[in-house]
């Protein structure tokens, strides 16, 4: 239980830090803290493969991508705040979201679970690489194929989004439309 409190505090600190940090780089580093705390939770909940995948995919690939974009876009610029276009939107959004999240959390914590539902011992290979491989290449192969197709589509989509455009000076009409 003490371990749970410590890791949960790490996750919550990371989450709050993402939201309140001024610099996007600090947000990214707080998000890494949050992700690693969740990976610890996955290990405790006997999902070893997912913990490894979480660290590799999130803390590795996704955060590196984030850091690249943050350095590319915010290098040498200061963040200037503009006036809000929707008055009071932040306050209302914050209050509503805190009410929703807090309400969900309270309901979740104080709702009694049904312990009679569960068998006692975990099945063999629960959550490790063999178990995940057996289920992903067996009965749930369609999900593996769907994820593969989705990642392929995303890669092609990124290339299409960032394809080199025709030179805007050549055709002033195109330039006007694009601006």
């Amino acid at each position: 239980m003490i371990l749970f409190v410590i890791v949960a505090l790490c996750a919550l600190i990371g989450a709050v830090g993402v939201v309140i940090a001024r610099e996007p780089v600090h947000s990214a580093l707080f998000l890494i803290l949050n992700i690693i705390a969740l990976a610890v939770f996955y290990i405790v909940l006997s999902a070893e493969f997912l913990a490894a995948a979480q660290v590799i995919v999130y803390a590795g690939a996704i955060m590196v991508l984030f850091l690249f974009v943050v350095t590319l876009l915010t290098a040498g610029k200061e963040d200037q705040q503009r006036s809000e276009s929707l008055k009071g939107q932040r306050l209302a959004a914050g209050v509503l979201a805190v009410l929703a999240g807090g309400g969900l959390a309270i309901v979740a914590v104080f709702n009694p679970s049904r312990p009679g539902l569960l068998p006692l011992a975990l099945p063999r290979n629960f959550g490790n690489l063999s178990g995940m491989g057996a289920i992903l290449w067996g009965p749930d192969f369609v999900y593996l194929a769907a994820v593969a197709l989705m990642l392929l589509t995303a890669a092609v989509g990124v290339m299409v989004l960032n394809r080199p455009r025709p030179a805007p000076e050549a055709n002033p009409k195109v330039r006007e439309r694009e601006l």
Partner: protein
Amino acid sequence: MIPLNWVVGLAAALFGIGVVGVLVRKNPLIMFMAAEMMWNAAALVFVAFARSFHAMSGQVMAFIIIGTAAAEVGIGLAIIVSVFHHRHRLDIDEVSRLKG
């Protein structure tokens, strides 16, 4: 073992913080990170219930969530970079009209 209720409660709190981040911040990168946190909270609930019900289908769903998040980050960051090349400001209000 950790009680299931507390894990689900933690996930709800993380989801709420992510909602606050998406709604309050104006930097699209930070909004994106908050959205990632919401994905993560959903995956945590799936893993917790998979452990509780001894069914690995929940872990398969969490696997799909991780894969989806990877694809989504690639596409989303490409869109942010593309918008930034047009507008030269990191502010979500720049695209409030969704016109190129």
